[in-house]
Structures are given as C-alpha cells and as structure tokens.
C-alpha cells in the first residue's frame, strides 16, 4: 500500500517523474502516464474516488484553460503542421493543438502525482522522515511541526474575525481601498497572535530540554525498505517505458524536437 511507503522516498517518487515529464511536448506520454497514475492511485491506495474527484475537477478546468491559451499563442517552433481551425484572428495548427493538449495533460499529471502523495502521507511522518532520511536539522523539523499544529486554530480564528467584522459593520464598506483594508484586518490579528504563539511554543519546547542538536533518539524510526526502492523504480520506470513507446510510435516530442 502506498500509505506505508517511506514519505521521503514517496516524495522523490512523484518529484522525479514530474521533472522528467516537463521535458515532453507530445500528447502520448502525459496521457498514458496519467492513466498509469490513476491506476496506481485507485488500486494501491485507499483514497476515496469521491474525495479525489472533488479536488481534481477544478484543476481539470484550469488545465483546459491553459491548453486553450497555449493553442492560441504557441511559438513558431511548436506550431508546425497544417491549420486545423481558426478562431477570431488565431490559427490553430496541428502542432499548436498537440502542444496545448500535451501541456494540459502534463499539468493533470502533476496534480494527480501530488494527490497520490498528499492524500496518502501522514504529516508528522513526512517531517520525521525528512529529518531522519534527508538530514533536515531537528530545529527546523520540530519548528515546522510546532507551527503547523496551529492550522485548526487559525482556521477557527479566521471564522471568528469574519463574524467580529460583521458585528462591527465592516461588511457595509466597499471599494478597492476598503478591500486592502479588509486584507489587513484579517492578516494583522492572525499574524500578531501567531507571532506571540511562536514565541510561547518555542519557549515551551526549549523548556522540555529541546536544544536542536542533531543527535537524538527516535520514537518513530523511519526506515527505507526494498519496497520503497521498488516504488521509486516503478514510478520512474513506467514513465521511461511510456516515453519509449511514444518514441517507438513516433510521437515523442522533447522541447519541440521529434524523437
């Protein structure tokens, strides 16, 4: 199961294919890799489809918008081929069409790779793994966790501030200057409180003997197992395979060059 993969390894397993994917400009590679990610997501993890699709859908729309822009404004290098159709003053060629679709699909791959990580990874374990495997200093690791703990507090506070402003009739004001004022009215109380909390938590942590030294024992020992390597290999390997297939069928396009 993907939830039990070492978090740092999992991070690299979605990061590396992401970087490699950014090299390709054909539609074949991102399309089939997207299919692959979806299969992995729904067979090897307990992510609920309903939850996944709820997060994914808005990005589908953004991806379509991005594809559309790319089609209209593709550079000459990428816009070869015959004219498919014309919109307004723009000509969409087969080259620009493919580039647009490719970039749209690529961004969907990014999102689904990210979801594969985010929806199956425990925050604390991710931080502990960054400390134990990637040598992130404990001072930063626990400093981040201490701040992250306040997320529910800040969300609740934001709600209260909204109500408090309504009571004071702020909702009655309009215009750009008021909007900037509004931003400040939300951010300043949140930050002011946050800064005080940062100070208090840091003192409380140091009072418990936390000195930030890297030598410490671990309650949760995070380890890298062979199956973590296997997962990394799978994620990268399948992208390479798909790209090779794409090349075999004559689709693969890297930075505008056909391979």
């Amino acid at each position: 199961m993907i939830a039990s993969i070492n978090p740092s390894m999992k991070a690299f397993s979605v990061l590396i294919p992401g970087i490699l994917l950014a090299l390709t400009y054909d539609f074949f590679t991102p399309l089939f890799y997207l299919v692959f990610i979806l299969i992995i997501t729904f067979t090897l993890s307990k992510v609920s489809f309903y939850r996944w699709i709820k997060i994914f859908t808005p990005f589908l729309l953004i991806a379509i918008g991005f594809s559309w822009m790319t089609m209209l404004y593709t550079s000459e290098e990428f816009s070869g081929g015959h004219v498919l159709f014309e919109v307004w003053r723009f000509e969409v060629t087969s080259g620009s069409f493919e580039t647009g679709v490719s970039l749209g699909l690529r961004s969907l791959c990014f999102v689904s790779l990210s979801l594969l990580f985010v929806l199956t990874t425990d925050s604390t374990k991710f931080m502990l793994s960054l400390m134990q495997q990637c040598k992130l200093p404990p001072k930063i690791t626990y400093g981040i966790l201490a701040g992250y703990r306040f997320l529910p507090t800040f969300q609740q506070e934001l709600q209260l501030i909204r109500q408090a402003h309504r009571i004071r009739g702020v909702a009655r004001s309009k215009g750009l200057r008021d909007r900037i004022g509004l931003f400040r009215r939300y951010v300043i109380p949140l930050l002011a409180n946050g800064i005080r909390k940062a100070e208090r938590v840091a003192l409380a942590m140091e009072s418990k003997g936390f000195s930030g030294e890297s030598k410490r024992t671990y309650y949760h020992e995070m380890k890298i197992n062979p199956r973590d390597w296997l997962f990394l290999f799978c994620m990268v390997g399948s992208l390479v395979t798909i790209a090779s297939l794409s090349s075999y069928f004559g689709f693969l396009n890297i930075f505008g060059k056909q391979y």
Partner: protein
Amino acid sequence: MTKHWKLKEIVLMSILGVVFGVIYLLFFFVGQGITTFLTPFGLGPLGYEFIFGIWFIVSILAAYIIRKPGIAFTAEVIAAVVEVLIGSTAGPTLILTGMIQGAGAELAFAITKWRNYTLPILILSGMLAASVSFIYHLYASGIIAMGAWIILASLIIRIISGALLAGILGKWLGDQLAKTGVLRGYALGKELQKKREHPAA
C-alpha cells in the same frame, strides 16, 4: 546556519507559512476572478500572473522581520513544506518551487551582504523572486512553447506583481505588525523601538 537562528524565529517562519496558507485561498479567488475575465481572449492563465507576487510575501516579510542571512530562502522553503503538510495539491514539487523562489528572494539581500532591508531592496527581492521563478516555470509549465510576446507579457506582469504584492505589501505588513508591539523580540521591532527612543537618529 541554523545555529544562528533562534527556535522562535523558525517557528515564526512556519507560522507565516500556515497563516498565508489560509490567506492564499482568498487570493486564489481573486486570481480566479481575473482568469474568468480573461478566458474568452484565451488569456485566462495570465490571471494568476497578476497575483503571483503574493507567493513570495513570506520570504520578504520574514527577512524584513528577522534580518539574518538565509532567512528569505528558508522562510519560503518552510512555507512550501507547510503547504504540503496542509495538503496543497502542488505536492512535493512545491518544495522545489519554494527553493527556487526563495533563492531568488535571497539574492537581493545577498547583494547587499544582508545589511540593507529598505524598501528598494525589498522590492528588488520580490522582482528577483518573480524572475527566477519564471525561468523555472518556462520549463516546468511549458510556457516556453508559447509566443515570445506572451512570454514577455507574463514575465512583466509577474515581476510587477512581485514588486507590489511581495515587496511593497510585505514591507507594509511588517510595519503594521511592528506597530502592534508583537515584534519586540525581533530585529524589526527593535529598530522601531530605537527610532522611538531617538527620533533624531
């Protein structure tokens, strides 16, 4: 480097990440609004360029408050890690993006050997973060496949956004915060106190 940082400064950077993680959602809607307006012209995605600067504000605000080498970079990376913990849909890639943007922001302070935290440098920091991040996105989002003028337009909009939403807004927020008195334990708060005690200096 972490030896010279206090734990409270690190927690502060993390909390900036959390607070702006909550605030970014509001900005996301602004970006969405501009996007909807531009979409019929096929310029929809440019909408996010207008608000891109807000993503660098943590760097600049943290550097302006704490004023130590490496803070602009680290604050942006920490904020990125926090966003991932919160469940950002950008996932681990965001940490990479954070490093790149943070490096851009840090560059401005490095040029002045971390001695100058005035408005021009803060604006420069926002603009450099914008430029460096743009180079990255040319590649990662494939903007490079687009026409030269639209690349240029995106870059200019992003740089202006970096100057305004990160540089100017960041300084302004820092000053507003200092007035509340909560920054007494940080470089910015101490500077303000000195100014109050010796108005002539």
